[in-house]
């Protein structure tokens, strides 16, 4: 792969990933945050492919973005969907 | 015959995988599987310790080590386990604490829905042992995770019916903070792997001399934060009092006797073996020394002001971790002697105190100091054991801690480090203060008090422990051989792990 394309792809991935991560932290709706978090993992698994780590990419895609999000959603359903007050406290 | 050290890990894993299977058949019998596992670990570690002391140095350096490689690849290509004198001693001590907890609590009906407490106690011990004896940095991380996951579960198991939910507060805090700790350690491992291209601790120690100081300093920072959280070093120990307050006495014993100790030894191993050589002068050891002293003072001060008995013992454990860390970091023959003796004294006295406290009342309530009022009148045996263990903790002779503090003061005085001596005296006075306060409550006889009966297993185990402590305190020469080996291991100021390569 051309190095410039590589850098451009990686930059794009990281910008997306950081933007999603900031949204995860800022979102008051925990379910939304969990889904955004799974997006972070999904992009991370693309970065793993860029880094020539297909095994890790597979594990990250299935564990990080699928299972983690699911158990988060289950836990949120057992508790409270919205962050109380958030930053004010 | 020397057993393979890998058995120290394989046996508990086997027992852990077997426990749920046995529990499907009989829940009652399944509680004995971890007990048998810990017993077998104890036998293995005793044989290893015996071999370490008796056999003359034969492999590397001036002291004897026992090694095991896994997967059939010589280190640094495979993961190796190395039992050094300090590792062998601590391993044995930790397993004995686990045995004390399991034997003492085996009769209790804590409304468990399965053998989970016993299983997790065993796995926390196995993880701690692994952290102490492993020769591979990433493997240490894996064992750290085993320990902290079983620690989380232990902390979450409620005491009595768990009505106030104190257990969940402690467990949630510990789960979050220990996860953070382990990822910081993983980041440090990434940095060190990048700089040295190896994970084997001995090989890394060889290569680390040539790496950049800033890299080593950053790794040091991450490692101290990460392991400091596990070892309850101030100011990273905010989670610990909640765990001590909300969980069972067995959990508290395991945190203070096993998990924290393993964190401490792992931190010492990483900092002294890998990172200290990469930094100029004595920066790493100075950080640990003053961190330890401050932890000692803060822990003892908090114990002095504490109104809840469980928390009090928790804070006193934190103080002890600080004292042990300070003694190790002081280095030299006196420092090592002090550290090992104080550690042994703490390993013996704390389980007794925790188990007696737990026997007094184990509902999900805070345990105000007033439960001790007139203990002498309620149960003479309990009162005598309590007084014995408390005085042993304080360092009243005959106690190993007395000798430990003696060596510590001579070490600090010998280096004319008067600030250190002063701070140590302040900490000891605080300690004497709260232990005096407790004894003041125990001693008076109030005949109207309801008689209180200590469970027979607790009585027997506590008696054995107190007797052992008195014996080791009266004849500290019994420990001479092994402590001399530990001093050799630390080699004065410069520490060399067995040169495996």
């Amino acid at each position: 792969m051309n190095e410039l394309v590589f850098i451009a792809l990686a930059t794009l991935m990281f910008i997306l990933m950081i933007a999603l991560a900031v949204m995860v932290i800022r979102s008051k709706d925990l379910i939304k945050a969990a889904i955004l978090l799974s997006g972070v993992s999904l992009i991370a698994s693309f970065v793993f492919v860029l880094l020539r780590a297909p095994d890790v990419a597979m594990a990250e895609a299935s564990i990080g973005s699928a299972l983690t999000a699911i158990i988060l959603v289950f836990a949120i359903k057992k508790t409270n969907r919205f962050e109380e007050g958030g930053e004010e406290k | 015959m020397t057993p393979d050290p890998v058995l120290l890990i394989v046996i508990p894993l086997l027992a852990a995988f077997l426990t749920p299977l046995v529990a499907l058949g009989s829940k009652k019998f399944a509680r004995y599987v971890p007990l048998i596992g810990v017993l077998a670990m104890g036998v293995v570690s005793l044989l290893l310790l015996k071999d370490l002391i008796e056999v003359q140095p034969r492999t590397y350096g001036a002291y004897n080590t026992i090694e095991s490689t896994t997967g059939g690849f010589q280190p640094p290509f495979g993961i190796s386990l190395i039992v050094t004198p300090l590792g062998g001693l601590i391993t044995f001590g930790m397993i004995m604490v686990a045995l004390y907890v399991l034997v003492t609590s085996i009769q209790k009906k804590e409304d468990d829905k399965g053998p989970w407490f016993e299983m997790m106690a065993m796995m926390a011990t196995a993880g701690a042992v692994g952290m102490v004896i492993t020769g591979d940095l990433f493997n240490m991380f894996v064992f750290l995770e085993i320990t902290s996951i079983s620690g989380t579960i232990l902390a979450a198991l409620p005491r009595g019916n768990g009505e106030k939910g104190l257990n969940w507060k402690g467990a949630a805090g510990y789960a979050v903070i220990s996860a953070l700790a382990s990822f910081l350690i993983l980041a440090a491992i990434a940095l060190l792997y990048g700089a040295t291209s190896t994970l084997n601790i001995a090989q890394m120690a060889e290569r680390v001399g040539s790496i950049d100081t800033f890299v080593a300093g950053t790794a040091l920072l991450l490692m101290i934060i990460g392991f400091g959280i596990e070892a309850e070093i101030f100011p990273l120990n905010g989670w610990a009092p909640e765990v001590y307050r909300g969980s069972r006495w067995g959990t508290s014993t395991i945190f203070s006797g096993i998990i924290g100790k393993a964190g401490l030894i792992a931190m010492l191993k990483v900092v002294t073996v890998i990172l200290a050589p990469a930094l100029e002068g004595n920066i790493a050891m100075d950080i640990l020394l003053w961190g330890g002293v401050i932890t000692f003072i803060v822990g003892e001060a908090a114990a002095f002001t504490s109104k809840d008995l469980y928390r009090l013992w928790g804070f006193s454990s934190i103080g002890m971790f600080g004292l042990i860390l300070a003694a190790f970091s002081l280095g030299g023959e006196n420092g090592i002697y002090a550290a090992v003796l104080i550690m042994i004294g703490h390993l013996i006295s704390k389980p007794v105190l925790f188990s007696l406290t737990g026997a007094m009342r184990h509902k999900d309530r805070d345990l105000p100091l007033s439960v001790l009022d007139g203990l002498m009148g309620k149960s003479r045996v309990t009162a005598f054991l309590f007084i014995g263990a408390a005085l042993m903790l304080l360092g009243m002779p005959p106690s190993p801690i007395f000798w430990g503090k003696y060596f510590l003061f001579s070490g600090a005085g010998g280096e004319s480090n008067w600030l250190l001596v002063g701070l140590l005296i302040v900490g000891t006075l605080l300690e004497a203060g709260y232990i005096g306060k407790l004894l003041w409550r125990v001693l008076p006889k109030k005949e109207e008090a309801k008689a209180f009966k200590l469970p027979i297993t607790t009585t027997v185990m506590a008696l054995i422990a107190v007797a052992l402590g008195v014996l080791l305190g009266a004849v500290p020469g019994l420990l001479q051989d092994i402590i001399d080996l530990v001093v050799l291991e630390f080699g004065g100021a410069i520490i060399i792990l067995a040169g495996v390569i």
Partner: protein
Amino acid sequence: MMERTTFHRSLPAIALALLFAATLFVAFVEVDFGEPRIEEELPVNYQPGEEIDTENITTPGLRYLANSSEETGSANLVTAVVVNYRGFDTLGEVTILFLAATGVGALLSFIKDDDEKKKKKILPPSLILNKGARLVLPLIILFGVYVFLHGHLSPGGGFQGGVIIASGMLLFYIAEPTKGASHKVISIIESTAGLAFIGLGIVGLMTASKIFLANDFAGDWGEVGMLVSAGLLPLIYIAIGFKVGSEMTGLVEKMRGDGS
């Protein structure tokens, strides 16, 4: 806006986080990105494919690259490292997953008592989801089995295969909210697979090398790249696959609990 008024309150946190990241950044930049650091011990002007003297190599990564095919017989070098060279770590890892799955079950049994009171009504899933899931489930499980059987040949392995099976089971749960796999069966599978892993490790203690987890049959069966090759390695990965599959299923199943 509320967001703007609260922004300055989290400034100290942001500043601290950035300071931390900057420190790490300066340290990591010292570790050159993309440089072949593990190959410092190779002769100058080395070309891929040349013979090298592995005796003098001390860097683990380099030696694994040079020797892995003969020593482990695995075509996937990551699998060789995970199962063979660092098999002890992997044993620890499945133990962690096992402890977590057990612990989640044990702790939820304490929470569950309160749950009984407020059981929600479960909406039946749509017909398409129900039938579709029944159709797809066997295929997903088959794919999972394929992934862990070919762990030594292609990307993937016991962990990924196990997780794929678990996600198939998850789909089944969504399609059939009232049903669940028997905890007893899951528990039996995970314990047995764990014992099998240790058993395969003890095979090493018994055979030639007398070392735990040694793969003494690495070169005995088949050639690199064939399904039957790499000695005990695929067997260990199958045990891991079953273990991870049952543990992940159990974890999700327990977290789901009743009534959600």
